[in-house]
C-alpha cells in the first residue's frame, strides 16, 4: 500500500463504499473490504508495473478497463469488478497467458499452490484454447545450484526481475529478447550468485522458478506447516517449517514486517538439511572406554553422579541456538545447583556483553537518516536479510555508509552534525568499535544515535540476557567478584568436567586445537545434543536431545525481540531437553517441578520481568524495567 498522505477518500467498489487513504491502489482498497481481484504481476512489496493485465476492472467514466494494481483511488470513484465485460477480459487475458504456457501442472512443483492454476479454474477457460504448437524452451534450466528455471512456464510477470532490482538490488535476473522469445535469464547465462534466490520461488506466480532442494518432494496438501523462527542467524526471520511425513521439506517465509519484511536469505532457507534426523538414538554412557547404550534414567543418574564428583569445577557451554527456557534451566543448574560460574555460550570472539537496551530496532533502520554499517559486507554476511532492509531504506533516501571496522573516523567525518537519527550496525565481534563510534557521534550530532549489534546464533542475544556468561548473571547482574572463567580460559583453569548442550549443528561446540587436547584429558564430558559431532568421541555421556525444529520455546533475536519456535517435527522418543536438565538438577538435590515449557517461561518472566515481552513477541527493553 503506497499511502502518500493521510487524506481519506471514499469510493464505491461493487456497490460497497470504502474509505481509504489517498494514494491507495484500487486493488488494496478492494482487499480491505474483502473483494478479491485476481493478480499476477502485482506484489505488495514492489512498485506496480501492470504488465499482466489480469487485474482489469471497470471504473465508471473511464472508457476502458483499468488495471486495479496500478490505478490509485479517487474520491467518488465507482469501481466494478464482476461485470460481464470484466469477466470476459479476465478469461481472455488468461487465454493469452496460456498460449505458450504448457499447463504441465502434474509434473510441476507449484501444482496445488499455483496462482495461475487456481485463477485459470476460477476466472479462465480452464484449459488452453490455443491449438497450434506452443513455444518451447528447455525444461528446468539450472539458474544456480539452488534454483531451476522452466522458461515455458514463465508468464513474464517481471516479479523476479523486479525483486532483483527493487528488493535485493543485485540486478541479476533480466528479461532477454522480445515477444514470444522473451525469456528470463542471468547475464551470459552465468550461475546466479544472489543470496536471496529462494525468494524468487515464493514470488513467482507459476512454477517457472522452483527450488532444487524441494524438487518433487511434496504437494502442498501433504505438508504439515509449523510457524517457527529461522535457525541460521540472529536476525530471527519468521519461517514456516513445511514437513511431509515427519521430514522437513522446506522452509518458507512468514511475513513479520518488523523483522524480515517477508523475505528469507538462502543461508537460512536452505539450512534445513542440517536438522533432518537420522534414525533413532538412545543415551550412551562410556564404560571401560566404550560407549554403551543405556536408558535416560541411567544416563541421567550417571551424569548427576559424575557432576557431583567434579564439584564446583564443572564448566557449562550452551549453544546460542538453545531456547531461552533451556538456557534459563541451564543457568540455574550451574549457578544454583552446581555452584559453578564457568558458563559460556560463545565460540571464538569473546565480546564484552552488556544490555543493548537502546538498540536500534531492525525496522527503524528505514527511519534513520544515516546508517553506518561498521564492517561492511561482514555485517551483511552475519545476518543476510539485513541487506534487504538496508537496500529498502536506501531506496527511501536513507544514507547507508559501509565502512571497515577500523574506518570509524570516515563515518564520523561523513555524517553531518544536523543528522536527526543515526544507526550503527556491527557484529558482536566489533561491538567495541561500534560503542566508541556511537559515543563520538553522540557528541557530534544533535539527533539520536542508536546501534544494532548482530549477535551470533538465533538466540545469542537470549544467552546473554539469561546470563550464560562467566562474568554476568541473568539480566546482566553483576557477580561481585564471584565471576567464573570463560570458554577460552577453561583449558588452564582446573576445570574437572564439561557439560555441553546444543540443538543445532549450525551453532554447535566446535573445539579449537587447544581445546581438543584439553578435552581428551578431561575426566568428564557430558554431551547433550541433537546431532552427532566429533565431540562424541571424547564424551563420557551422550544425551540425545531435540533439534531446533523439534521443540517449543522462545528465542531472542539481535534486536531483543522474543519469538516462539515450535515443533515442526516429532521425535517423541527423545526426551525434551528441559526435562533432562530438570532431572539432572533434581538428581543433584534440587526440587524443580516443571511440567511444561510454558511453566518455565512463566518462571523466567518472573525472574526477568523485561521478558514479559514474550507475550507480545515484542522486544526486551532492559532500560524500561529499571
Amino acid at each position, binding site marked *: 500500500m503506497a499511502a502518500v498522505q493521510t487524506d481519506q477518500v471514499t469510493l464505491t467498489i461493487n456497490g460497497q463504499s470504502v474509505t481509504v487513504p489517498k494514494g491507495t491502489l484500487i486493488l488494496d482498497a478492494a482487499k480491505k473490504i474483502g473483494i478479491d481481484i485476481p493478480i499476477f504481476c502485482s506484489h505488495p512489496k514492489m512498485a506496480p508495473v501492470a504488465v499482466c493485465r489480469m487485474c482489469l476492472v471497470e471504473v465508471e467514466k473511464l472508457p476502458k478497463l483499468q488495471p486495479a494494481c496500478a490505478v490509485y483511488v479517487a474520491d467518488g470513484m465507482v469501481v466494478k469488478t464482476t461485470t460481464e465485460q470484466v469477466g470476459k477480459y479476465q478469461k481472455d487475458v488468461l487465454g493469452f497467458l496460456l498460449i505458450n504456457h504448457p499447463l*504441465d501442472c502434474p*509434473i510441476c512443483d507449484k501444482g496445488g499452490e499455483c496462482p495461475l492454476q487456481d485463477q485459470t479454474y476460477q476466472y479462465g477457460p480452464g484449459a488452453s484454447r490455443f491449438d497450434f504448437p506452443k513455444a518451447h524452451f528447455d525444461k528446468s534450466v539450472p539458474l544456480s545450484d539452488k534454483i531451476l528455471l522452466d522458461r515455458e512456464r514463465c508468464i513474464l510477470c517481471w516479479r523476479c526481475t523486479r525483486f532483483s532490482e527493487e528488493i535485493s538490488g543485485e540486478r541479476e535476473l533480466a528479461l532477454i529478447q522480445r515477444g514470444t522469445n522473451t525469456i528470463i535469464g542471468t547475464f551470459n547465462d552465468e550461475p546466479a550468485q544472489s543470496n536471496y534466490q529462494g525468494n524468487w520461488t515464493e514470488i513467482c506466480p507459476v512454477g517457472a522458478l522452483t527450488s532444487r532442494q524441494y524438487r518433487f518432494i511434496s504437494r502442498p496438501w501433504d505438508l504439515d506447516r509449523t510457524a517457527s523462527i529461522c535457525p541460521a542467524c540472529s536476525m530471527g526471520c519468521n519461517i514456516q517449517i513445511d514437513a511431509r511425513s515427519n521430514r522437513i521439506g522446506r522452509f518458507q517465509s512468514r511475513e513479520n514486517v518488523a523483522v524480515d519484511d517477508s523475505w528469507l536469505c538462502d543461508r537460512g532457507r536452505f539450512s534445513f538439511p542440517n536438522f533432518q534426523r537420522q534414525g533413532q538414538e538412545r543415551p550412551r554412557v562410556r564404560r571401560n572406554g566404550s560407549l554403551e547404550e543405556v536408558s535416560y534414567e541411567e544416563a541421567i543418574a550417571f551424569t548427576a553422579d559424575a557432576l557431583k564428583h567434579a564439584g564446583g569445577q564443572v564448566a557449562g557451554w550452551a549453544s546460542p541456538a538453545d531456547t531461552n527456557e533451556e538456557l534459563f534451566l541451564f543457568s540455574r543448574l550451574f549457578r544454583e545447583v552446581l555452584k559453578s560460574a564457568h558458563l559460556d555460550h560463545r565460540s571464538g570472539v569473546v565480546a564484552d556483553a552488556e544490555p543493548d537496551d537502546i538498540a536500534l530496532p531492525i525496522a527503524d533502520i528505514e527511519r534513520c537518516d544515516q546508517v553506518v554499517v561498521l564492517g561492511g559486507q561482514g555485517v551483511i554476511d552475519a545476518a543476510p536479510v539485513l541487506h534487504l532492509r538496508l537496500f529498502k531504506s536506501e531506496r527511501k533516501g536513507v544514507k547507508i555508509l559501509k565502512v571497515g571496522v577500523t574506518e570509524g573516523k570516515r563515518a564520523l567525518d561523513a555524517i553531518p552534525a544536523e543528522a536527526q537519527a543515526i544507526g550503527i550496525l556491527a557484529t558482536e565481534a566489533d561491538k567495541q568499535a561500534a560503542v566508541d563510534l556511537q559515543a563520538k557521534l553522540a557528541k557530534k550530532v544533535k539527533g539520536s544515535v542508536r546501534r544494532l549489534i548482530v549477535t551470533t546464533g538465533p538466540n545469542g542475544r537470549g544467552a546473554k540476557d539469561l546470563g550464560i556468561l562467566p562474568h554476568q548473571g541473568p539480566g546482566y547482574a553483576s557477580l561481585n567478584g564471584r565471576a567464573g572463567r570463560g570458554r577460552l580460559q577453561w583449558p588452564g583453569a582446573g576445570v574437572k568436567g564439561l557439560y555441553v548442550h546444543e540443538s543445532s549443528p549450525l551453532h554447535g561446540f566446535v573445539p579449537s586445537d587447544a581445546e581438543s587436547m584439553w578435552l581428551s584429558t578431561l575426566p568428564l564430558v557430558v554431551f547433550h545434543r541433537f546431532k552427532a559431532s566429533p565431540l562424541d568421541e571424547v564424551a563420557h555421556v551422550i544425551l540425545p536431545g531435540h533439534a531446533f525444529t523439534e521443540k517449543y520455546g522462545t528465542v531472542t533475536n539481535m534486536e531483543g525481540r522474543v519469538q516462539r519456535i515450535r515443533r515442526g517435527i516429532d521425535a517423541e522418543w527423545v526426551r525434551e531437553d528441559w526435562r533432562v536438565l530438570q532431572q539432572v538438577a533434581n538428581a543433584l538435590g534440587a526440587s524443580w517441578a516443571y511440567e511444561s515449557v510454558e511453566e518455565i517461561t512463566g518462571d523466567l518472566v518472573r525472574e526477568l520481568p523485561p521478558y514479559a515481552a514474550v507475550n507480545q513477541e515484542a522486544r526486551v527493553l532492559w532500560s524500561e524495567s529499571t
Partner: protein
Amino acid sequence: MALKEVLLGPLYIARALATTFKHNTKPIVTIEYPERQKAVPPRERGKHILHRYADGLEKCVGCELCAIACPVGCIVVEAAENTPEHRVSPGERYAKRYEINLLRCIYCGFCEEACPYDAITMGPRYDLADDHPDKFIAVKEDLLEPLSASISDTAIPSGAPSAQPVARKW
C-alpha cells in the same frame, strides 16, 4: 395319531424328493469358484492397475492427484526425478513410491477419474482376500502392468472363462 404319521411317512418323503427332482432339471446358476470365474462387467471397479506406454515407460508421473482425489486417503505417492540413466516415465517426474491400501479403498474410482495421464484405472480383479492386513498394501510392483504383457493377459486371473480387456471410459 402316531400310527397315522408312520403310515403317511413315505408320502412326505416322496413329496420332498419331488421338489429335489424338479430343481435337478432346471439350469445351473452357480459356478465352481475359483476354478471357473464369471466375466465381470467391462466397467467393473476392482483392483487398480498402473499402466505403461507401449515402449514400457510408466504412464504415472507421480503427480499425486489420485491421492488428493481419493475420499478415504488410501493412496500414498512419492515422486522423484527421472535421469538419463534411470528413466521410469517420459518427462521429468515419476512415482518412486506408489501404494494403495486396498482394505481402506472403497473402490469408488475417483483416482482413475483424477488421473491426468490415464495412468491408473480400476481393473477387473476382485479376488483380493488374504490372511493379514499388511498384505493389503498394494505397492507399485503389485499394481504395475508387467513389462512384456498386454493388459488383458495380466489383469484377469487365469482360468476365467471370458477374459475381456478392461473397458476404458475414454
